């Protein structure tokens, strides 16, 4: 078979579940074995594998890039001034020194590998405790307590960000997680359903926000079920014909759909008010019996409202995940043909995943819209991608994971607002995402099943899922 012997691989030792450890040799579907034959120049990962010289080169290259990232700006008349001033200034030595120190650290730490392994085994029981039922409950309760206390400890700009950036995206990520994480379908236009939810809200709750509106207006809470249904319906209409297609094509069709929805929202000025956005959706209020509450501009009550919904969705999806449906999804994800052969109605279940995902997105759209103002800019392709990145970053298939992903990624973006020039923060965002994919592709808090699938895929045993199939030429 291929030359897997040429790359001495540490993977075997890394797997935590012994059942999948040894059989990594027969990997006819991948060419990772070939690279040993190619030229010089280390990628980041090979820091660990190739000679120290190459590692040093990579470390220094990274530190130069960091120097440029944090250095002064250039402009179009002097395009290389920024780079020159970053690289030729004395501060470059600080960066090189850090790079050098890091290199030394890697050298030392690879010698200390054995020590760490022992440490890892020491810590293993903690992990095991966390995976028992009471342990998990305790962990979740702690997380919830932190989530409840969080807004009390931060500024109101941060609270606003907790709502707009983190809460909404956590909800969106939970929905997309059903599509991508559970059913293994790649949806690149997920934000379209969010837009649908928001515009449905605009239609039903205000007479001034959009030129086209319903004859009677409702409280945003009453729109929730409507938006849920409309978004799910849109998901079924879109998914019906396209879910028959191969994974890649589904991704592209959904991408096209997402773009179409945003462009329509932008251009159909007579209906949606175009890029000027929808202004004046009333804040939700509760008037049930003795309870009267009116949400207002203050972000905190919104945060708790969102938190409530997030917890609800987490519970509900937990039930689904462990039900027949959830198991069927896992079967489809891992091997669609085998699932079909064993009598799983794959098309219908995929459609269901799509519809559930879409409805959560629509739901989030209502909550977003009821904060008074939204415009088509919120529904860009970048937003779809951001949700996807949150899901992958946090850990596909893990409900807690995707929420953590939203907190960490969006929190990072917010944290960087004041720390780096505002326009530069996406440079850091991009760098963190790449580093994450290189070093921890299973996400921050991977689901156990997903982690195993990725390990299997890395070991070349199985293509994980229709999407996960690593570059695969056998098909």
């Amino acid at each position: 078979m291929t030359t897997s012997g040429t790359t001495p691989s540490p993977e075997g030792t890394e797997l935590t579940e012994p059942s999948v450890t040894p059989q990594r040799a027969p990997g006819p579907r991948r060419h990772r074995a070939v690279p040993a034959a190619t030229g010089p120049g280390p990628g980041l990962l090979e820091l660990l594998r190739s000679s120290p010289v190459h590692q040093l080169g990579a470390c220094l290259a990274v530190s130069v890039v960091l120097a440029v990232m944090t250095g002064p700006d250039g402009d179009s008349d002097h395009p290389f001034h920024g780079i020159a001033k970053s690289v030729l200034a004395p501060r470059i030595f600080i960066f090189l020194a850090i790079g050098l120190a890091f290199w030394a650290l890697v050298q030392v730490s690879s010698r200390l590998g054995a020590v760490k392994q022992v440490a890892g085994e020491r810590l293993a029981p903690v992990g095991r405790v966390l995976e028992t039922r009471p342990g998990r409950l305790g962990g979740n309760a702690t997380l919830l307590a932190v989530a409840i206390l969080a807004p009390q400890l931060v500024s109101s700009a941060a609270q606003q960000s907790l709502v707009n950036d983190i809460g909404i995206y956590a909800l969106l990520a939970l929905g997309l997680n059903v599509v991508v994480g559970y059913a293994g379908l790649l949806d690149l236009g997920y934000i379209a359903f969010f837009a649908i939810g928001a515009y449905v809200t605009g239609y039903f709750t205000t007479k001034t926000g959009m030129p086209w509106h319903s004859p009677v207006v409702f409280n945003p809470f009453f729109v929730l079920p409507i938006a849920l249904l409309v978004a799910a319906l849109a998901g079924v209409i879109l998914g019906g014909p396209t879910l028959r297609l191969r994974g890649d094509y589904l991704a592209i069709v959904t991408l096209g759909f997402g773009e179409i929805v945003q462009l329509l929202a932008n251009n159909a000025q007579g209906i949606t008010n175009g890029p000027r956005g929808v202004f004046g959706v009333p804040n939700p209020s509760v008037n049930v019996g003795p309870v009267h509450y009116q949400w207002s501009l203050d972000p905190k009550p919104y945060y708790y409202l969102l938190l409530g919904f997030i917890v609800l969705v987490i519970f509900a999806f937990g039930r689904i995940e462990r039900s027949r449906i959830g198991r069927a999804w896992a079967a489809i994800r891992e091997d669609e043909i085998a699932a079909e052969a064993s009598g799983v109605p794959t098309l219908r279940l995929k459609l269901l995943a799509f519809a559930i995902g879409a409805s959560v997105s629509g739901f989030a759209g209502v909550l977003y819209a009821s904060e008074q103002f939204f415009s088509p800019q919120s529904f860009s392709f970048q937003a779809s991608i951001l949700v996807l990145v949150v899901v992958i970053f946090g850990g596909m298939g893990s409900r807690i994971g995707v929420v953590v992903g939203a907190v960490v990624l969006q929190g990072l973006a917010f944290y960087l607002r004041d720390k780096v020039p505002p326009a530069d923060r996406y440079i850091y965002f991009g760098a963190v995402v790449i580093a994450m994919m290189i070093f921890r592709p299973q996400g921050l808090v991977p689901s156990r099943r997903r982690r195993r699938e990725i390990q299997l895929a890395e070991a070349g045993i199985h293509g994980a899922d229709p999407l996960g199939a690593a570059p695969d030429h056998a098909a």
Partner: protein
Amino acid sequence: MARRHVTGMAVAVLAVAVTAAACGSSGGGSSSSSGGKKSVEIGFQGPLSGDNQQLGINAVDGVKTAIAEANKKGDLPFTLKLAQSDDQGDPNVGPTAARQLIDNSAVLAVVGPVFSGATKASEPLFSKANLLSVSPSATNPALTTLGFTTFFRDIAPDTVQGAAAADYVVKTLKAKKVFSLDDASEYGTGLSGAFEPEAKKDGATITHDSVNPTKDYTSEATKIIADKPDAVYYSGYYAEFALLTKALKTKGYKGILASGDGSNDDQFIKQAGVANANGVYLTCPCGDANSDPKAAAFVKSFEATNAGAKPGTYSGEAYDATNAIVTVLKQVGAGATRKSVATAFKSVDYVGLTKTLKFSPTGEVAGSNVFIYQVKNGERTVLGSTAVLVKG
């Protein structure tokens, strides 16, 4: 997993350490005392990044100039500082940017937001926080009708500019057939909405079209040329107007080209190319400080404060807005609060560089002139105010 884990974390730590090292100096600014005086901050909200950042930079530089002058004079009971908040000109980023200023208790007044859309999204928060906000540039007519209690602008709304522009294009330049194109934004539709009825009233025939900002105006140029207009008026910002101008000129359009204050920036000339930009008319409710002899002192002080940069569109308005705020701060004195500043601003009467700042109860500035600019030899030159140029 262990090794990779450690490396990954180490990379993250490295990145954070470097970031912190590089940016450690820029920290938050709550009120602190320097030199015995309490310090008060004036906030600024506008686009400091993104496609149309130049307009935000013009304005913030004006604010900086006014603050530097006030501190130099030293007759205030406190030192002034600037707190910037970038909203990227984006209505969705507006609220977070606004909250950042509201959270900073040292901020007693805000200059901005710069763009109309972001203003609409941010003002409810400013109103609630009783924080005064004076926009140097948000010209959408509807803004003063939405019930914002602390919103003022020292620039005329687009209704004034649009009508004046229409009068000039139709009456003075004698265009019979006008193609009015807007960028479908809050600002663009407001301006074209004022331009078109006035042009019709003046006897021109109008073709209206609305195109979202894009990078490719080729087919739109074909469409415009097929319509054979005498004049094209674009309501939108310079990045797109430059591309439109380029596309039209490439296709051999010879008629009149004009646009509003959103395009009135030297970046327009640069991006369209001097040859294409020559002869283009620009309308603006703003005067040009660079060519106004009365403003020579301002231009000098502006250049000194901003490393030689010249004042641009909205620099003068932002400067005036800041100075008016400074006047009010002086009046209110050391015990100034957000509320007292906002209340006192209602009755401000300050003779500024661009106009006299005196506001109607809704926050509209009392008087205003619209100026016509033309690009000649790659420079924007003022032809004069429409009050003089338009006859009959």
